[in-house]
């Protein structure tokens, strides 16, 4: 188990390298920040893993960081995909609606099966479950749009959503189902979490391994020739 825990960290370093190579920090700065934070958090946890109190503090502080970044990244993904589709005002309401729904579900779950931690840690756990709900809802919603609107699935925001969506789906499933296993739950949860997160990071590496064609702004294109313009004018006249 100890060796297995390092696999996601190694994969995250590879992912960070791929993100730098593809200059993703310009297109998806929050996701780039998330990946950099994840590498930093793993390093910090490793550095203090022999000191019980420090590890406890580092673990929960980084978990809170993951919660906040999880929400920010999903906002970035949704904004990038939907912002390019339409300028309709109601689109801006989708994210707050999904966030409130996720918070509501998470709080309701905590009422039914309260987490075994108290104080600030309770809120961090609630935040974590909220982020999982949010990730699944955004991922599943975006994937539904692929066949409905004919969107291209192999684009960076969909890659980010797929990685998070897979991880969050499995983690929600384990949280709901594996709790039936009683004392064995903790070990199973740990294994599942590490393996699924590794798969999620592999998905990100796969998506970002292919360069995404950036279209040149129209100002960078040469002006159409007078012949082209005349042809275009004639075509428009015939079309109307």
């Amino acid at each position, binding site marked *: 188990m100890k060796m297995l825990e390092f696999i996601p960290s190694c994969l995250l370093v590879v992912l960070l390298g791929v993100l730098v190579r593809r200059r993703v920090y310009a297109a998806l700065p929050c996701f780039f920040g998330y990946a950099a934070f994840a590498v930093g958090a793993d390093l910090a946890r490793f550095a203090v893993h022999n000191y019980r109190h420090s590890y406890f503090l580092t673990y929960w502080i980084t978990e809170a960081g993951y919660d906040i970044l999880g929400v920010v990244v999903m906002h970035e993904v949704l904004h990038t995909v939907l912002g390019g589709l339409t300028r309709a005002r109601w689109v801006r309401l989708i994210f707050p609606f999904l966030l409130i729904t996720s918070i509501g579900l998470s709080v309701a779950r905590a009422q039914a099966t309260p987490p075994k931690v108290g104080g600030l840690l309770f809120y961090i756990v609630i935040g974590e479950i909220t982020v999982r709900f949010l990730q699944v809802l955004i991922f599943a919603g975006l994937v539904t749009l692929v066949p409905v*609107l004919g969107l291209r699935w192999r684009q960076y925001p969909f890659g980010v959503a797929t990685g998070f969506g897979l991880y969050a789906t499995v983690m929600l499933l384990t949280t709901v189902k594996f709790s039936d296993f009683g004392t064995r739950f903790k070990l199973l949860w740990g294994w599942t979490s590490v393996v699924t997160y590794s798969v999620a990071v592999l998905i990100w590496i796969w998506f970002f391994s292919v360069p995404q*064609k950036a279209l040149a702004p129209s100002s960078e294109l040469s002006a159409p020739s007078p012949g082209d313009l005349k042809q275009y004018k004639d075509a428009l006249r015939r079309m109307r």
Partner: protein
Amino acid sequence: MVVIIFTWVIVAWGALSCIYMLRCAWSRFPKRDVDVDDVIPFLYPVDLSLAESLLDPAAEFEFRWKLSPRQFREAQRKRMRLYLELTRRMAHNSRVLVEYADAEKQSADLRRANLASALQDKAIEVRLYALLAGIKLRIWLLLRSDILKPVLSQLRTAGDIDGLETYHALKTAATAAFVQLPPDEFDSLSRNL
């Protein structure tokens, strides 16, 4: 109990989405070579003047004024079915154009790629409008129209998208993208779109 059901529904939706993405990755779907021969014969003509008349509030008011309530309900259902067919055609045409633009965006020619991107953006917007307007129309048709009292002219915009204006913009984007076509092929395109 409700929370558990919601959680399971969300987990199942997430799992199905994972399977769909896996299928996309496995089959590289929907990547296929689409050229202009895969566009023109596949388009369904959309009569925009008919759509304009169906969405005209004055025409609707005239119907309401002239016909008895029962006759008006019948006429309104017919008009709704007709507009539903037009939105279906709009959605179909934009789907064809999205696929074409997707392939065209891979072009090394930056101008062609940019025109394809503009065409795709407009086509997706039309699909979004057709989807929202279609849902509204189906609900109106499913429930008795005397309960909801549907006003067809309200369907000019759905989800803040002006349907006819967006479809005109799609036609303009298609004009720019297909401007190099021979005149006879271009005329078939303008007839079919």
